[in-house]
C-alpha cells in the first residue's frame, strides 16, 4: 500500500464517463442523440447522431407533383410551417418565371411573419422550460395558441397548414382576420412583456445563458450559420433585408444584431425579432392592396370552382393541373427565404414534367447542428441545455 504522502492527486486513476443523452430525452428537441464523454461535469467529447426523424422528404418529392410537395414542406420546420410553404412556392415560381400579384405577396408576408412569431415564442419558452422557469414557458405557449388560432382561421389547420400554392396562396384572408389580429396583438404584447420581465434581467437566467455556447463570427460563417444564430455573433445577414422578396422591400423593420455569439444574445435577438415581426404585420395590413391573391396564369393556378363545374375548358384545365402537375420548364434554381431559423434554401432541379427531378432543402438547423460540438466541448453538461434551446434545432428540419 502506498503511503498517504506518496499519493499525488493528479495520479489518481480516473476514467471519463460516457453518457448517452439518447433520442428519447426531455431536453432533446426532436430526437437527437448525443453521446457525451464526460470528465466530471465537463464535456470532453460530444458526438451527435441525427436521423431519427428522417422521413425521406426528398425522395417523396421526386414522385409527387409540385403541389403535392406542399404538405411535405409543412413538416420540415414544423414550428413555422408557413415559412417553409412560401419558400417552396417562391422557388417553383422562379423556375416558372411567373409573378405573384401584390396582394398575394402581402398575404404571404403577413402569414409568414405570424409563423415566425410562433417559432420564436416556442424557442424562447422552451428555453425557459428547460432551465426551470416553468411559468415563462406557459406564457409563451399561450401566445403560441393564439397564433395557432390565427393559423386556423386563415388556413384551416393549426400546424400543418399547406397554405401556399404555386402562383399565390390557397385563399384570401377571411374578413375576421383583422379584428382577430388586433386582439391577438394586444395579448401578444402583454405576453412579450411578461416573458421579458421574468427572464431578461433575471440573474439566474443571465448566469446560465451568458458566456455559454459561444461561437465566433468567422467560425459561424464557416459552419454555415444563418438566421438569429448568425446575427447574434454580429454578422448582419438577413435574407429579408439583403435580398428582399414578397413584400419585405416595402415595409420598414429593423434586424436585431447581437455581439457576443453566446446563448444570451441568441435569446435577445429572437425576443427582439418577435417585436419586429409584429411591426411588419401591422404595416402590411395597413398597406395591403386589393386585387387577386393568385396570379392568373391558367397553366399554374386552378380555375375557379364554378368554371370547373360549368365549363369544359375549366374542367380539363383543372384535370390537367391536378393529374399531370404544373409543367415546369427544365432548369434548376436555388431559391432562399428567411425561415424561422435562418436562410431556408430550396435547390430544385426540374426536367420539364410536372414532378420535380430533385428537391433539396438547405435547412439551417442541419449545419448549425454540426457546429454544436464546437460550442459544447469544453463546457459543462448543464450548458448543453441552453445551447440546444437557443440553436433551435428542429428535428424535422435536420432530418427532413
Amino acid at each position, binding site marked *: 500500500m502506498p503511503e498517504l504522502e506518496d499519493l499525488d492527486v493528479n495520479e489518481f486513476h480516473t476514467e471519463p*464517463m460516457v453518457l448517452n443523452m439518447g433520442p428519447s430525452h426531455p431536453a432533446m428537441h426532436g430526437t437527437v442523440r448525443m453521446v457525451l464523454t464526460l470528465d466530471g461535469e465537463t464535456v470532453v467529447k460530444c458526438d451527435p447522431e441525427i436521423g431519427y426523424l428522417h422521413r425521406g422528404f426528398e425522395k417523396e418529392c421526386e414522385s409527387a407533383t409540385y403541389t403535392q410537395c406542399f404538405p411535405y414542406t409543412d413538416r420540415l420546420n414544423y414550428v413555422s410551417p408557413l415559412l417553409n410553404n412560401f419558400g417552396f412556392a417562391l422557388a417553383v415560381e422562379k423556375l416558372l418565371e411567373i409573378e405573384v400579384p401584390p396582394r398575394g405577396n402581402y398575404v404571404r408576408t403577413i402569414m409568414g411573419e405570424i409563423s415566425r412569431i410562433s417559432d420564436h415564442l416556442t424557442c424562447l419558452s422552451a428555453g425557459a422550460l428547460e432551465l426551470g422557469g416553468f411559468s415563462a414557458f406557459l406564457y409563451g405557449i*399561450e401566445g403560441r395558441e393564439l397564433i395557432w388560432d390565427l393559423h386556423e382561421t386563415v388556413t384551416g389547420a393549426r400546424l400543418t397548414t399547406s397554405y401556399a400554392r404555386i402562383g399565390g396562396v390557397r385563399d384570401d384572408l377571411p374578413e375576421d382576420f383583422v379584428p382577430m389580429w388586433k386582439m391577438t396583438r394586444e395579448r401578444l404584447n402583454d405576453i412579450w412583456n411578461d416573458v421579458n420581465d421574468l427572464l431578461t434581467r433575471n440573474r439566474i437566467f443571465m448566469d446560465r445563458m451568458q458566456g455559454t455556447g459561444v461561437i465566433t463570427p468567422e467560425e459561424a460563417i464557416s459552419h454555415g450559420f444563418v438566421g438569429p444564430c448568425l446575427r447574434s455573433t454580429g454578422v448582419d445577414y438577413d435574407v429579408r433585408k439583403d435580398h428582399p422578396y414578397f413584400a419585405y422591400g416595402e415595409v420598414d423593420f429593423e434586424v436585431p444584431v447581437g455581439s457576443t455569439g453566446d446563448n444570451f444574445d441568441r435569446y435577445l435577438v429572437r425576443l427582439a425579432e418577435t417585436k419586429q415581426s409584429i411591426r411588419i404585420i401591422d404595416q402590411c395590413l395597413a398597406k395591403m392592396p386589393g386585387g387577386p391573391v393568385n396570379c392568373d396564369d391558367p397553366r399554374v393556378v386552378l380555375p375557379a370552382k364554378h368554371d370547373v363545374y360549368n365549363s369544359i375548358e375549366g374542367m380539363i384545365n383543372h384535370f390537367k393541373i391536378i393529374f399531370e402537375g404544373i409543367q415546369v420548364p427544365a432548369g434548376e434554381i436555388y431559391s432562399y427565404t428567411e425561415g424561422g431559423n435562418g436562410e431556408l434554401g430550396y435547390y430544385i432541379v426540374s426536367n420539364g414534367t410536372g414532378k420535380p427531378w430533385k428537391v433539396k432543402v438547405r435547412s439551417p438547423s442541419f449545419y448549425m447542428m454540426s457546429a454544436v460540438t464546437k460550442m459544447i466541448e469544453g463546457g*459543462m453538461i448543464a450548458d448543453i*441545455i441552453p445551447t440546444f434551446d437557443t440553436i433551435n434545432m428542429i428535428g424535422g428540419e435536420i432530418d427532413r
Partner: protein
Amino acid sequence: MEALIDIALIPILKVVVVVFGFAMAIGTVLTWVERKQSAFIQRRVGPNRANLGPITAFGLLHLVADGIKMILKEDIIPDGSNKVLHMMAPALGLLPVMIIFAIVPFMDFYCHGTNVVIDGMDYCFAEGGIGAGVVRLDELANPLYNPRLGHYFQIADLQAGLLYMFAVTGVSVYGAAIAGWASNSKFSLMGGLRASAQMISYEISMGLSLAGLLMIYATIDVNDIVREQGDLLFGFLPAWGIFMQPVAFVLFLTASIAESKRAPFDMPEAESELVAGYFTEYSSMKFAVFSLGEFVAVVFIAAITATLFLGGWHVPWLYADGFHFGFDAWTGGAATTTAEAVSAYAAANPPDLALPYPLVVFLRIGAFITKTILLCFLQLQLRWTLPRFRYDQVMHLGWKVLLPISLLNLVVTAFFVLI
C-alpha cells in the same frame, strides 16, 4: 396515572398531532397547493377532475387519488442495484425531516397559573397571585423548575435545540447520496453526487447565518429564542429576528431552500437534464416517500424560519394577558427580584386590551400556523418563477457568496453586541 399521562400519553399525542397532523398533513396538502398555485400563476386551472360523484372539492380529491395510485403501482427495483440500499434510501430521505419537527414550538409552555408580563416576556406565577419573597424569573420560565408550565406544544424542549437541527440536517444528506448510488444508473449517480455536494456546501452557510442570531438572543433553545422575540425595540417594534438580522434572514432562507433541493436549487433533480436525478429509478411508494420528504422539508423550513425570524408563535404586541403596546423598562434583573417589585411593575403596566388566556393560546397557535403557511407559499412561488442554477454556479453561490456574507454578518453582529 398522572405520571403515565405525563410521560407517555402527552408525548405520543404531541408526536401524532405535530408530525402526522401538522407536518405530514400540510406536506400532503402542499402537493395540491403547489399544483393549484402554479396553475394560477400560469393562467390555467390546475387539477379539478378527481371526484366522488358530484363532489370535486377543487381538486383536493386528487390527493386521495394520488395516494391510491402510489400504493397500487408496481415497485420496480433496477437490475444491478444494491437492493438493501435501494430500499433504505427513501427512508433516509423522509425520516430526518420528520424527526426534525421535535424542536418546533407551536406555542409557549401552557401556564396553569396566572400570567404576568414583564417587559415583553410572559412569566407564570402561582394561581392566586404573585406571592411574596424573592422571585427567580429565569426559573419561572424554565419547565424544569416551574411545575405549572405545561409542556404541550413542543415535542421536545431541548436546550440544544438548534444544534439538534443541524445534526439531523447533516444526516439528511445520506438519503440523496445513497439513492443516487443504489440505482445503478449514470443519471442517478450524477444526481446523487450533485445533491450531496450541494447539501454539504449549504449547511455551513445555514449554520453561520444563524450564529449572529444566537449571539443576539444568547441561547440555542428554540423556544427561548421565540420568547426573546417578544421584546419591543424602541418601544414599539417587536424584536423579531428579521428586524434584528435581516441579512441573516435572507441567507438562512436561501441556504435552507438549497438544502432541501427545491427550485431554484433543484440541480440534483433537474428534469430536463437528468430526467429525475437521483430518484429516476424509484417508482410507486418509494417515490412518494421521496416527494413527501421534500414537501415536509418545505414545511419545516417555513416553520423554522417563522420561529427564528418571524417571531414564531408571537402575534405582535399580544402577550399572555392581552395586548400591550408598550412597556416600562424592567430594572429588576432576571435572577433575583422581589415579588413586590413584580407586583408594582404589573400594576403599572396593565394590558391595553385584556384577553382571556385560552384565546391568546388559540391566537398564538393560529399565528404560527399562518406564518408557516405564508412561507410555504413563498417557497412555492419561488419554485415556479425562477429558472434553476447551473451546478458550478450553485457551488459558487454557496462558498464564495453566502459564506463570506454570513461571516461578515457574524462580525458586524459581534461588533454591535459588544457596544
